[in-house]
């Protein structure tokens, strides 16, 4: 780890100005990903601007009914907040599915969004990686791909985004509030993350010096009927092989609204618009769910090591939708 200077930010504006003025500066919040990357040699900032004590650690209801979660709120506090649990249960579930209690106690909402891929090749300085060293090549393609993407990949990168929280936020049309040198802007969470294309070293659309100050969730009633399911190689404390965040509204056996996002399948949380379109107006049945999954995954590009993700996403999605339908309508009568 190279030596670095440390500056504790007193307010968001000076934090942004300080990082913007230093090309090798970066924001520090919980540090659970950044400090690890500094140890691994993946990040070499010469100045850390600590934003973890800024007063952004609250959940608020805005006048128009939206819910704002401050960027420095700890993951554990966000997961336990009564408003989040009641209005966006999938978000609480997703937060609780991520990391361990110790890490959730420290990791912030903003930091969770900006954590980087756990692709083993990205984290291993001895292997080529276009995300780490643009133009070096991708060791994952043709290598061990069990953890890698099947949707939206490029010939340059097949890494996945690791956040669980971001998958639930993608399903609920959350906006990310960003402060930069030219003031505040809102970025739809589904547009925050880039697909790898020819520049996989850029995870997001944020510019150097831009600071996430919060996340805003719209008031969508369907979100109350939502959940998150994560499938992984051990029961807890592991990243997702695949995950599903979903919300379902049902009237008279027909699906009137659906929100679905997938994790562990792409370079960003994958909002499954095709699934949603295939569900709306159709009856709650396994046939509907399977057809919807098949339509979304028709363009999946698999490798030898991750081909299992196509049936795994399908089965997980079916299980989640069935559970949500049963919760609202009760299970079908035994035959």
């Amino acid at each position, binding site marked *: *780890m190279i030596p670095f200077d440390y500056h504790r930010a007193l307010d968001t504006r000076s934090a942004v100005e300080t990082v913007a003025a230093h090309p090798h500066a970066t924001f520090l919040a919980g540090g659970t990903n950044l400090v690890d990357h500094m140890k691994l040699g993946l990040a070499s900032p010469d100045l850390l601007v600590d934003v973890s004590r800024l007063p952004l650690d609250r959940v608020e209801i805005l006048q128009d009914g939206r819910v704002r979660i401050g960027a420095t709120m700890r993951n554990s506090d966000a997961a*336990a907040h009564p408003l989040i649990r009641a209005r966006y249960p999938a978000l609480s579930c997703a937060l609780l599915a991520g990391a361990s209690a*110790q890490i959730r106690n420290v990791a912030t909402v903003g930091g969770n969004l900006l954590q980087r891929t756990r692709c083993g090749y990205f984290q291993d300085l001895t292997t080529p990686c276009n995300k780490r060293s643009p133009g070096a090549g991708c060791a994952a393609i043709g290598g061990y791909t069990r953890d890698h993407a099947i949707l939206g990949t490029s010939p340059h990168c097949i890494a996945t985004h690791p956040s669980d929280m971001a998958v639930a936020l993608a399903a609920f049309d959350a906006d990310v509030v960003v402060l930069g040198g030219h003031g505040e802007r809102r970025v739809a969470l589904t547009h925050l993350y880039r697909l790898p294309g020819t520049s996989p070293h850029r995870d997001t659309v944020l510019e150097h010096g831009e600071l996430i100050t919060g996340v805003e969730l719209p008031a969508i009633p369907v979100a109350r009927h939502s959940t998150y399911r994560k499938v992984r190689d051990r029961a807890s404390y592991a990243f997702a092989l695949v995950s599903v965040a979903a919300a379902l509204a049902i009237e008279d056996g027909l699906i009137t609204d659906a929100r679905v996002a997938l994790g562990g399948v792409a370079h960003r949380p994958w909002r499954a618009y095709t699934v949603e379109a295939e569900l709306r107006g159709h009856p709650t049945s396994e046939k509907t769910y399977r057809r919807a999954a098949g339509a979304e995954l028709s363009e999946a590009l698999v490798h030898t090591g991750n081909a299992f993700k196509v049936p795994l996403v399908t089965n997980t999605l079916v299980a989640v939708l069935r559970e949500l339908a049963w919760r609202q309508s009760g299970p079908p009568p035994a035959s």
Partner: protein
Amino acid sequence: MSDWPLSNALPRSTRSEPIETSLKLRVDGEHHELTVDTRTTILDALRDRLGNTAAKKGCDHGQCGACTVLLDGRRALTCLALAVAHDGATIVTAAGLAERDELHPMQQAFLDHDGLQCGYCTPGQICSAVAMLEEFAAGHPSAVTGGDGPMELTREEIRERLSGNLCRCGAYDGIVAAVRQVTGL
């Protein structure tokens, strides 16, 4: 590769002189003032500077939980926490849980139920378990209880809530039994 814009080269700093900083920590009831390199983690400050070796260095990458302490009242990993960012913090290690010669009930329960073999993960396990019971009492949900479920400290619930502490000896059954003893189950 021709389609890589040259401007995409990753910024990399080359700073080489160490930078030192002064800070205060309260550890197991004692106040300390120390000057550290900004790169120092709380774990290294505790072990190498203050001689408190209760928290253990296992993976040093936030994957094993051996370095868990109570940091300002919450369980946290000290290997991923920079000391400079926690100036003024109050830290309780497993060594600070005992009252004089009397073990904390969780420490005694680990002995009673063989909640350890080699013991390397034990200080982290015990800090984690003590904090976990406080979180449970405060109504914090887990992935087992989900966003909105009944709160009962089942074996499955304990395992989930302590999943951030690995034990390579595999003393998990004893650890779960120890936690249940403390809760009166």
